[in-house]
């Protein structure tokens, strides 16, 4: 069941928020022992909040589409009185006395928190194979990773343990798990959603966004999450438009969709290539014009993003790693160490270059309305698989998984990640639609048009029937 379907059922009195919440909690109880999507389950407070939501609706107080809808928060968003671990041993007993901005906003919108989701340690990785809380598993094949760092959020949504979830994306951490788990994830424009109360990783790269079953749900969630917040120094005072795409068939007549002829379609599993091109031809069938473009060297942009993240994450973790070195998992400790020895000049040159490349991308986005590219070059790899063969060549799994997503964090552009199809063995494949700053509404409209036409979103992980 999607958020919009549940919202309609609540208003038709076919379902109550308590019933919906009980259904989600039952799914968590049944499947979490195998999939490990949640670190903390807040069943009793969820039921109390659901009862209140039902009472409010009965009294005519309607907070909007998210009213009474079960939600999961990634376990790096501070939640008042509820443990917030960031998937780490360092924060394993941290209980904040305040709520993160998105926790506040989603609660004000009536959403019901059912728990806090598992993630890659400190959000610094893409496997969600966590040394302290165990591996989060992909519901399409539990031997495979769900992606990360927001892996638990993606699994919760894919399996109906929650109808929506929050995520953060510093180098693909919303878009990768969305692609590997067959759901929708949106990395909004940098500054669109407040990061206040989200435990940081990379100051200038961290983005907060929605993770949902489908595109219209992502629009509903973003509507509640977006907006200026003076408590976040990088929050942008931009108008918040209506993000919701229309219902019914959406024409893409007059839209120019850029298909990069370099970098993004190189070194791919041919199944991914075919799936994303199928999405492009579907857009063309809906009226869009496909335009071949060339983008700046993606490898170079990835290097700038990696240098920026290494330095910023080392700065964030400096006080903790000095005192609690053994509390870090091997992979995260190595990355923090690398950042600690990186020269400050490299970081500053990366900032200069980043701005220069953003200018080139903004010029390209005057020629086209958006780009359509793959999200990940492969389907989800196996848990513990450090290298993967792509088109006959071996590649580091982490670098391969982030290759097509990381650069957009350095540019701050909005990106929608959505299902593009399935591999022969039934694993989800994902694509990204990349737009101009603050143009999330257009991305959501294009995404909804493609989703309506392809119907990929209707396919669910085996063993997880619709609620």
């Amino acid at each position, binding site marked *: 069941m999607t958020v919009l379907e549940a919202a309609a059922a609540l208003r038709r009195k076919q379902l109550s928020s308590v019933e919906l919440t009980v259904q989600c909690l039952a799914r968590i109880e049944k499947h979490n022992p195998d999939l490990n999507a949640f670190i903390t389950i807040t069943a009793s407070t969820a039921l109390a909040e659901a009862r209140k939501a039902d009472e409010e609706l009965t009294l005519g107080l309607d907070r909007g589409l998210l009213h009474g809808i079960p939600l999961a928060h990634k376990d790096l968003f501070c939640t008042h009185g509820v443990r917030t671990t960031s998937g780490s041993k360092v924060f394993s007993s941290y209980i904040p006395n305040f709520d993160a901005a998105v926790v506040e906003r989603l609660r004000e919108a009536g959403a019901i928190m059912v728990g806090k989701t598992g993630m890659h340690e400190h959000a610094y990785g893409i496997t969600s194979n966590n040394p302290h809380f165990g591996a989060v598993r992909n519901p399409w094949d539990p031997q495979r990773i769900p992606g990360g760092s927001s892996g638990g959020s993606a699994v919760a949504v894919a399996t109906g343990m929650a109808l929506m979830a929050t995520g953060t994306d510093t180098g693909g951490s919303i878009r990768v798990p969305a692609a590997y788990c067959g759901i929708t994830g949106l990395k909004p*424009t*940098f*500054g669109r959603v407040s990061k206040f109360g989200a435990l940081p990783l990379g*100051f*200038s790269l961290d983005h907060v966004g929605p993770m949902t079953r489908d595109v219209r749900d992502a629009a509903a969630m973003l509507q509640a999450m977006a907006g200026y917040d003076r408590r976040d*120094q*990088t929050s*942008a005072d*931009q108008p918040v438009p209506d993000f919701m795409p229309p219902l019914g068939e959406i024409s893409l007549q007059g839209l120019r969709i850029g298909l990069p002829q370099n970098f993004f379609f190189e070194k791919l599993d041919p199944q991914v290539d075919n799936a994303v091109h199928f999405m492009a031809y579907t857009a063309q069938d809906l009226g869009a014009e496909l335009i071949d473009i060339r983008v700046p060297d993606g*490898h*170079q942009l990835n*290097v*700038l993003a*990696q*240098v920026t993240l*290494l330095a910023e994450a080392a700065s964030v973790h400096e006080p903790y790693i000095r005192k609690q070195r053994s509390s870090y998992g091997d992979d995260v400790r*190595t990355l923090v*160490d*690398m950042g*600690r*020895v*990186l*020269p400050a000049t*490299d970081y*500053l*040159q*990366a*900032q*200069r*270059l*980043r*701005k*220069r*490349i*953003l*200018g080139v991308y*903004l*010029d390209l986005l005057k020629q086209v309305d958006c780009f359509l590219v793959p999200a990940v070059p492969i389907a989800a790899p196996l848990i513990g698989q450090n290298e993967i063969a792509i088109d006959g060549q071996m590649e580091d799994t982490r670098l391969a998984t982030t290759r097509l997503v990381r650069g957009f964090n350095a540019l*701050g552009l909005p990106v929608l990640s959505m299902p593009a199809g399935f591999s022969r063995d039934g694993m989800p494949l994902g694509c990204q639609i990349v737009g101009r*700053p603050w143009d999330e509404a257009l991305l959501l409209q294009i995404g909804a048009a493609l989703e309506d036409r392809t119907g990929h979103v209707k396919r669910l992980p085996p063993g997880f029937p619709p609620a």
Partner: protein
Amino acid sequence: MSTSLGPDWKALAAAQKIELTETARERLEGLSKTLLGLRGLIDWTEEPAQIFQLAASQEDSAE
């Protein structure tokens, strides 16, 4: 000792009492080399020390 124009990663790590793996050193070397190769793109008159904000960058690009 440094093996290229880039920093001596082993010495930098030792100064921080850190031991980097060979893979980590190779990755840092690769990142640094790529950055070095991109120096030609830098506008040396630009001030890099500012908080990254997209709105401001957009205005710059439109100029």
